[in-house]
């Protein structure tokens, strides 16, 4: 049986997160007034986002992705490559490259399991030569975002169950698999494999990793 390395993206491999991507889109609205309005509103909502994320990743998703309502799919896709080149690529942690390279040398399949949006993740996955990825996807109707996510919503336990199903389908032995995340919300994803690693962890995940004797990695 084979094995894989599952990576969370935001905060784990790259310094940026969902809000950075959204803020980039907000800054690049059609028209100056719309850009300013959306940027200010995003900036003002940061404390709310932080509080929601601290409480529960699902709650964060509920209040965060609704901000995409009305965005044109074409424009989001058009901005994705630019977003990657200007914002995401410079934010990739230096250690991410060597970690992935070593992991690939071991013959592990490289898989991104992230709550970020597919349009944001695609260029990064290409750049890091990721074999597979699963992301959140916005629902579009008539080419415009509804502000809802298509199921399954990648967060917390959903990531773990996706990994289980993926492993079964791809005939992977989960005991030989690795997973990497920076956030306590990814505890299920870390717990489901034989080799979990906390990467640049927040305080809660650091304490949990210490309690479980998991390796703690700093890729920054």
């Amino acid at each position, binding site marked *: 049986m084979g094995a894989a390395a599952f990576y969370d993206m935001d905060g784990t491999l790259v310094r940026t997160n969902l809000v950075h991507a959204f803020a980039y889109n907000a800054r690049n609205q059609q028209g100056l007034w719309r850009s300013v309005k959306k940027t200010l509103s995003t900036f003002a909502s940061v404390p709310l986002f932080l509080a929601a994320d601290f409480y529960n990743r699902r709650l964060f998703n509920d209040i965060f992705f609704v901000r995409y309502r009305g965005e044109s799919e074409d424009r989001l896709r058009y901005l994705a490559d630019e977003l990657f080149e200007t914002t995401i690529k410079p934010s990739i942690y230096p250690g991410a490259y060597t970690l992935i390279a070593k992991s690939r040398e071991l013959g592990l399949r490289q898989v991104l399991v992230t709550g970020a949006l597919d349009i944001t993740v695609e260029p990064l996955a290409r750049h890091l030569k990721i074999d597979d990825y699963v992301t959140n996807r916005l629902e579009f109707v008539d080419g415009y975002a509804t502000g809802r996510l298509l199921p399954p919503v990648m967060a917390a336990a959903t990531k773990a169950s996706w990994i289980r199903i993926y492993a079964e389908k791809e005939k992977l032995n989960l005991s030989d698999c*690795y997973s990497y995340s920076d956030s306590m919300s990814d505890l299920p994803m870390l717990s489901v494999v034989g080799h979990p690693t906390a990467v640049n962890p927040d305080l809660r995940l650091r304490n949990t990793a210490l309690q479980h*004797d998991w390796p*703690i990695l700093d890729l920054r």
Partner: protein
Amino acid sequence: MRERQPKILRGPVPRRKEDDQVVYIDNDSAPRILFSGEDLLLEDLPIGTRVVYPKPPIEGLANPGAAIRYALNHPLDTAPLYAQLMPGMRVTIAVDDISLPLPPMATPDVRQTIIEILLELLDANGVDDVHIVVANSLHRKMTEAEMKRMVGAKIHEAFYPDRYYNHDAEDPDGIVHLGVTDKNEPVNINRRAVESDLVIYVNINLVPMDGGHKSVTVGLCDYDSLRPHHEPETIRASDSYMDPKRSALNTKVERMGALVDKHMNVFHIETALNNRMFAGPTAFLSKNEDEFTEFDRLKFEAMKWSLGKLPAAAKRTLFHAIPAQYQLIACYAGKTEPVHEKILVRCFEQYAVNVRGQADILICGVPYISPYNVNSILNPLLVQVMGLGYFHNMYRGKPVLKKGGVMILTHPCYDEFDHNHHPSYIEFFNRLLPETRDAMKLRHKYEEEFAHNPSYIEMYRRGNAYHGAHPFFMWYWGENGRQHIGKVIVAGAQNAHVPAMLGWERAESLTEAIAMARSFVGPSPEITLMHHPPIVMADME
């Protein structure tokens, strides 16, 4: 009148003092002090117990700087260093890491003294392209503060981090394959060193296993180059690995070192230190307890009382903050082999004590420090390496303990690991040891998995973690002890599961441990206490 027959003695053989450092316990002997991690025990030993003390420190050289300069100008089997230098040449100074000496010596570290002299000489000869590389092999990388302490602020400021850094055994671009020996052992060495016109190795010889070809061949190599000799068969075939002439480990390293010498120009500087580990207020720890003054006893009681009141972490910090007062007793430079030979003579002069006859029971107090936990915790695997590895191997001739005898260690055996320094040890201890303690099985089934674990590799490269394969080496290090010793009992272990995981037994106290050992080896055993630390080696007759 019938001639009186000599009395037939039963039990321990009659004593004849084999060395001034050997003392036998009698009716009015004082209790002995033993280390037990960060604590000190005061134990009454059974009458007849042989206590082997370290030799008193050989007096340090009055002018270490002059001795170093003399060595550089009068090297063995090669031209003086100044004659080998040319403007524009590329020079790498490789230096032993923090695992030597133990504990770290009071500043200035002898490495600082040597490097200062070297840099002056290099500068005077127009050599500008100089890098200083810590030869940490698969040990953890030293922190910036540790590196600064080792060479002093001036050198640190001038060279760190671009020209003063740790060796990285996992840097894909940083290692060069020099070839294989006739026994098919690959020799892979640090690229900067290989591509230098001259490598100057600055060594400290704390134990006879150190130095010689091990300096470059091990200190600057990668995992593939360590595998041929850091393995159970080699350790089993070493009798002991502290006796280079009878060490299979040394034979392999020398073979690989010969290949290094073919490709690289190495100027070796080796030093020997005395064993002045304790000085000033703690000097009593090196003394024979029978010779304690009232003041010594008072100091001991005060220290024991204070340690008893402190939490383990505070005691650890306290001990690690006390530097050793080592002094330079010898410095030689030149070609690796003749230099090492000279230094070994001085090392044995300091450490070797004549001991006659093997013991049935060997008692060793395990201190708070080993080469692998400077500024960190002596975790269970390191307790194992201290007992079955270092203490068992501190002999020439034959082991202090008879085959199948009992080793008693005093240590709390706390189930604590340093997550930054020893992450792979944790998995080794909790996942592998419950399955097997068989070194061969561990090597073949799991070593490569740990060695190539991407998380451990990144923690080694970016953090201060020992390499993923290091806990295996620690287990192999205890292999000849494991094969030789009949039973290990840990006196004062604060839990049962750590000794059980290591395959050992636990006793509440040293008295209980000795009683348990007696029931294993017989009622009138020869008991020997090796009074470590400082380091003492038995020259067995």
